[in-house]
């Protein structure tokens, strides 16, 4: 299991500003290790962000998202104390879900 995501969700005016840092190798499948063997691709393919049962952002990723992916976005309709949940699934079927409480900002 990958390390927990670091999520910061805070109010910015009437919007919720979310920054997330995920822990993932994001191997392209094109890199060779020291012995010259290809390192198999291992990368996050789908990311979903939900708030109050509603998807506020979803994404499909390829191998060119940087290692330990970072995302920053904003959505309307959240209030301090409510939760934002972020989930990802990678190409090996591993998944991780973490949540953060929206702070007053």
């Amino acid at each position: 299991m990958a390390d927990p995501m670091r999520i910061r969700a805070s109010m910015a005016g009437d919007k919720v500003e979310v920054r997330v840092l995920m822990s993932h190798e994001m191997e392209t499948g094109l890199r060779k290790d020291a012995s010259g063997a290809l390192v198999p691709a291992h990368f996050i393919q789908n990311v979903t962000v939900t708030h109050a049962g509603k998807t506020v952002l979803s994404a499909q990723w390829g191998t060119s998202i940087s290692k330990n992916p970072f995302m920053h976005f904003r959505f309307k309709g959240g209030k301090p104390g409510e939760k934002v949940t972020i989930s990802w699934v990678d190409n090996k079927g591993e998944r991780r879900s973490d949540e953060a409480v929206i702070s007053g900002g």
Partner: protein
Amino acid sequence: MDTRRRAVLKAGGGTGVLALAAAAGLIKPGEAFAQQWNKAAFDTKSFAATLKALGGSGSTESTQIQIIAPDIAENGAVVPITIESGVPKTDTIAILIEKNPSTLSADFEIPAGTDPFITTRVKMAETSNIYAVVKADGKYFHAVKEIKVTLGGCGG
């Protein structure tokens, strides 16, 4: 008294079944969701081919789309990119890196209520044009910016 106890037991049993159903329900959309990865689009190797795989037959260059990224990236492994779309009814924002082994980097779906704004970090193999492709109201728009890379991010 006894009938009431029965009722409670029945209700309790019912809740258990509901919880199980919910758990099963939670797993199912997750699996369906994992399959929603547009392999065909991620396999494309040019702006035109990626656009087609994303469902667009053509795209209009738009000044309403902004790509905020460095002109020169010293490290191609971590290139910060922000895309902001001023196109009304923006539904999706895709990031395309023309000269990467796979052109499509990411495709974000922006539901109503979420700003058409996204920041992430991408890998770049070499100096390349970056396209931000926005789908809005069924039409495709794009902006382009060249980023020079001093050190590639996909080397071995």
